């Protein structure tokens, strides 16, 4: 870029009259003034600062809190999380552990002398079925069976101590029935028979 004659600056600054310049310099001054005029005529684009200030001056959105919350939830927001790299690595390790380490579900932890007993009975039309035995102190309502698809098949899966357990089903709170699928029965001393279940430790 060539340097301008200092007299041109003086003319542009109003220190010298245009006529005092030689004709070629006068032509240069006129070109510069036309160019400046074009720049003034063009609309300047709004900068980031201009947009932020405009947003700050915007009146608060109207409507209910729920509508404002909905708008906030559906608008785009830039979220910046500042985190040290060491924490990033720790977070990544935790996520990897959660995703990759096999788990055995959320069921109960079983002791060495505990096992799983599954009780199943077909009681169409029943309103409730409970299994009772020494493991419930012979109370109803402690282990209700469920029939979630309403096909008349009621079931429950229970953690019990290993060994032999006498039990009966109580249907609708009043009918006592020895499990017809039990395969083992003992006299209950009251003129009926209890079903007998032998629970094995899990994992053996």
């Amino acid at each position, binding site marked *: 870029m060539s340097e301008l004659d200092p007299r041109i600056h003086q003319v542009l600054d109003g220190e010298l009259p245009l006529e005092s310049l030689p004709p070629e310099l006068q032509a240069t001054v006129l070109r510069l003034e036309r160019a400046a005029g074009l720049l003034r005529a063009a609309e300047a684009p709004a900068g980031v600062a201009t947009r932020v200030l405009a947003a700050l001056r915007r009146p608060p959105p109207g409507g209910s809190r729920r509508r404002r919350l909905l708008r906030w939830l559906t608008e785009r927001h830039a979220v910046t999380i500042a985190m040290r790299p060491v924490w990033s690595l720790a977070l990544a390790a935790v996520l990897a552990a959660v995703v990759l380490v096999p788990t*055995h*579900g*959320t*069921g*109960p932890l*079983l002791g060495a002398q505990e*096992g*799983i007993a*599954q009780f199943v009975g077909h009681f169409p039309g029943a309103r409730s079925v409970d299994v*009772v035995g*020494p*493991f*419930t*102190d*012979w*109370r*109803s309502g*402690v*282990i209700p069976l469920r029939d979630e698809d309403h096909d008349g098949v009621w079931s*429950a*899966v*229970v*953690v*019990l101590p290993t*060994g*032999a357990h*006498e039990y009966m089903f109580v249907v609708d709170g009043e009918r*006592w029935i020895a499990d017809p699928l039990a*395969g*083992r*029965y*003992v*006299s*209950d*001393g*009251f003129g*009926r028979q209890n079903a*007998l279940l*032998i629970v*094995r430790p*899990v*994992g*053996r």
Partner: protein
Amino acid sequence: MLALLAVATPLGAQIDGGARARLAGRVPEAAIAAVDSLVRAAQADDLPTEPLVQKALEGAAKHAPPGRIVQAVAAHADQLRQARTLLERAGGPPPTAAEISSVAAAMVRGLPPPLAERIVTALPDEPPGPALHAVADLAGHGFAEDAAVDLIVASARVGLRGLRLLDVATAAVHELQRGATHGDALASVRRALPDVPSPPKPSPAQVNRARRPHPGV
């Protein structure tokens, strides 16, 4: 029975304890003193008492009359005594409460005491409950009791122990269900020993669904 109630009541009336507290409100008032007395007597004899409390709760839940509840508890106390005597005669260290309970529970299934004693004596290092239940399983399906004892004792001697003895009985019953005679079923299982199928383990889904009962809640 009235005599039993009359004899038991004075002793029971003097006693306040855990068993009585568990029976109160559930077992008819007329039976509580006698049952409590039987429980105390069992405790004094170093017998397990929980099966007696459970028998009383069971009778009450089934709306048995008080006399019948006391009778059932007394009968169960006798079974526990018989089980302990049987275990003591078989030798070895003094039987634990769990051993007495498990032998009594198996004998309730109808095993004659001499047969039970034969099993316990033949398998001194074996927990008695599973072996007795295995024989009771076989007897319950019509197998001759002596032959059933022979099979279970033979199974234990080839290394099957504890609850695996139940699998021996199950295998014999399966043979029966396939059409074998009782004799053929026993012979078939005996030839296969110690290879008898184990029952399937509960699936992880079953374990996850399992609930732990809380009777006191």
